[in-house]
């Protein structure tokens, strides 16, 4: 009982203190973060739990966009743009196309899941992984010190074309090969 009273006290005191030092920008920041993060997680869950795979795909796109918004919120504007373009655009289209090409019948139950046991096991495993990662995040005494490195796009361009030009070129080859490979595989599938 006492503990409860204590909590109530604290709540009241907090309300007062809130009035005292009302840090608007920080709260807005928090609001934005929680809004988009929450939405992203919600949509992510939608990817998994929608019965209709098209809905899942749309949900995935929504997740991507929410994440892009988060990027924007911490100043990674270029990254946000890439996210929207590549994920929200290209990948989503690819996926929807794939769905259309591999499924021509009723979409109602087009996103089946494994059995109950598998869900339970997956939940345990996922939970363990999550708690591990959370523990890692919490146990690490990061000394965060946000700073501005200037505009992201020029900074990235600078890196990409000087420091990391080689990976950049290799990534080009990678995309080329992925394209060729995808064509070959898909073509092979067609020519039955």
């Amino acid at each position, binding site marked *: 009982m006492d503990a409860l009273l204590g909590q109530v006290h604290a709540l009241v005191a907090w309300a007062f203190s809130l009035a005292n030092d009302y840090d608007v920008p920080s709260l807005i920041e928090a609001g934005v973060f929680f809004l988009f993060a929450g939405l*992203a997680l919600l949509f992510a869950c939608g990817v998994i739990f929608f019965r209709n795979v098209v809905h899942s795909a749309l949900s995935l796109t929504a997740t991507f966009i929410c994440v892009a918004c988060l990027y924007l919120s911490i100043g990674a504007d270029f*990254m946000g743009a890439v996210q929207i373009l590549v*994920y929200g655009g290209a990948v989503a289209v690819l996926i929807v196309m794939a769905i259309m090409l591999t499924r021509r019948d009723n979409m109602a139950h087009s996103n089946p899941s494994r059995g109950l046991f598998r869900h339970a096991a997956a939940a345990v495993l996922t939970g363990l992984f999550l708690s591990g990662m959370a523990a890692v995040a919490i146990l690490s005494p*990061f000394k965060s010190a946000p700073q501005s490195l200037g505009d992201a796009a020029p900074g990235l361009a600078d890196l990409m074309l000087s420091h990391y030009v080689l990976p950049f070129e290799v990534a080009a080859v990678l995309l080329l090969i992925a394209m060729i490979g995808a064509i070959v595989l898909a073509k092979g599938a067609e020519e039955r």
Partner: protein
Amino acid sequence: MMSFMELFQLATHVGLHHFLLFSAILFAVGLFGLLTKKGLIPLLMCVELMLNAVNINLVAFNHYMPVYDYSGQLMAIFSVAVAASEIAVGVALAFRIYRDHGTVNVDDLDEMKG
């Protein structure tokens, strides 16, 4: 024990840990999907979720930690490229599977075992 207030304070001061936890959860959701979905395409979507989650990590570190260039974001960009390639190949393979098996459910893929 932490009081509500401190908790709230902690929650409202959005920082690195928020993003780390968020990305961990997103990753976990993707992982959960990867383990439970049947269709190949939903599985690919889940993979994308996981890769995306990691990107959030990278971008967040790049923003919050005392670093002097954008290499974290760059890494994320490369990861996007890789993810895109992966999904392209994955989709092509989905066609293969669909052709061979008439379905894209991976639980039918057990020709090889033991």
